[in-house]
């Protein structure tokens, strides 16, 4: 499905560049929802998120001539959205990001006799097709909102928007290695919250 969605976006971008009249509303509707989602999870404020969505789309049209490759429309839109979010939250500039230690996410072990058991929930009780039950969704939502901002933006772009590592790196002005480091820690932190929930904590 995400591959299809991206194909659709590229097609919309091509039509938009070609000046096909119906492309405008399709493009605006699609990316407005996407950018709103991203900026809502980044800013946690509805008004800011709607402003970011509008400012992003305006900027997109103002600088569309710079988009040489319609294939790159998604990372390009998110780059503009990310900058608009930063402008809304200028204070983040003063909080230099620090990486969390991997050891904080290592699960504890139980040692009963010679056989060790890992202290995690029984995730096999959670079949793939039923992952997003409504309460899980709330826990996930909470877990994402509690992530440090520099981890949240990476997991949103990599796992939710399914940008590649390279695209995410370019969008956020980071190296690919930093994207990988932050994505892993973000996932581990989210996993830990979900695990606590599944264990009834």
């Amino acid at each position, binding site marked *: 499905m995400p591959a299809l969605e991206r194909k659709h976006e590229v097609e919309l971008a091509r039509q938009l560049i070609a000046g096909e009249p119906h492309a405008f509303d399709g493009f605006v509707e699609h990316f407005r929802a996407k950018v709103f989602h991203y900026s809502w999870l980044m800013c946690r404020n509805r008004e800011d998120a709607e402003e970011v969505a509008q400012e992003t789309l305006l900027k997109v049209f103002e600088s569309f001539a710079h988009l040489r490759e319609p294939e790159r429309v998604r990372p390009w839109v998110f780059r503009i959205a990310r900058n608009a979010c930063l402008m809304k939250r200028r204070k983040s500039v003063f909080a230099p990001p620090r990486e969390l230690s991997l050891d904080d996410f290592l699960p504890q072990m139980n040692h009963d006799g010679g056989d060790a058991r890992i202290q995690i929930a029984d995730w096999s009780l959670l079949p793939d097709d039923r992952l997003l039950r409504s309460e899980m969704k709330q826990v996930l939502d909470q877990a994402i909102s509690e992530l440090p901002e520099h981890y949240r933006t990476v997991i949103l772009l990599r796992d939710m928007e399914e940008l590649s590592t390279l695209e995410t790196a370019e969008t956020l002005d980071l190296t690919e290695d930093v994207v*990988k480091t932050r994505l892993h820690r973000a996932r581990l932190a989210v996993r830990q919250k979900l695990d606590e929930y599944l264990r009834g904590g």
Partner: protein
Amino acid sequence: MEPHQHTHKCKEVFSLLSEYLNLELPPEACQEIETHLAGCQPCIEFAESLRKTVELCRQYQPAELPAPLGKEAREQLLEAYAKMLSGRKTVS
């Protein structure tokens, strides 16, 4: 056999799990991880929980949606789009 602590290998696998799940590792490294997972129940359980976490994130849909686009906001965008089109024509 010693009771299972997180061995050096467990920690190495643990640090590479996201790249492994993303298919971003070279084949030899994948093979090494798979060999370790095949013999290490705690690591396999952990890897499965991380895989499901990623799956959850991928399925995640926003609870909040933007309000419908207002008339004024749409006009503002349409104007920028018209400018973009006319700018493009004068350039080419």
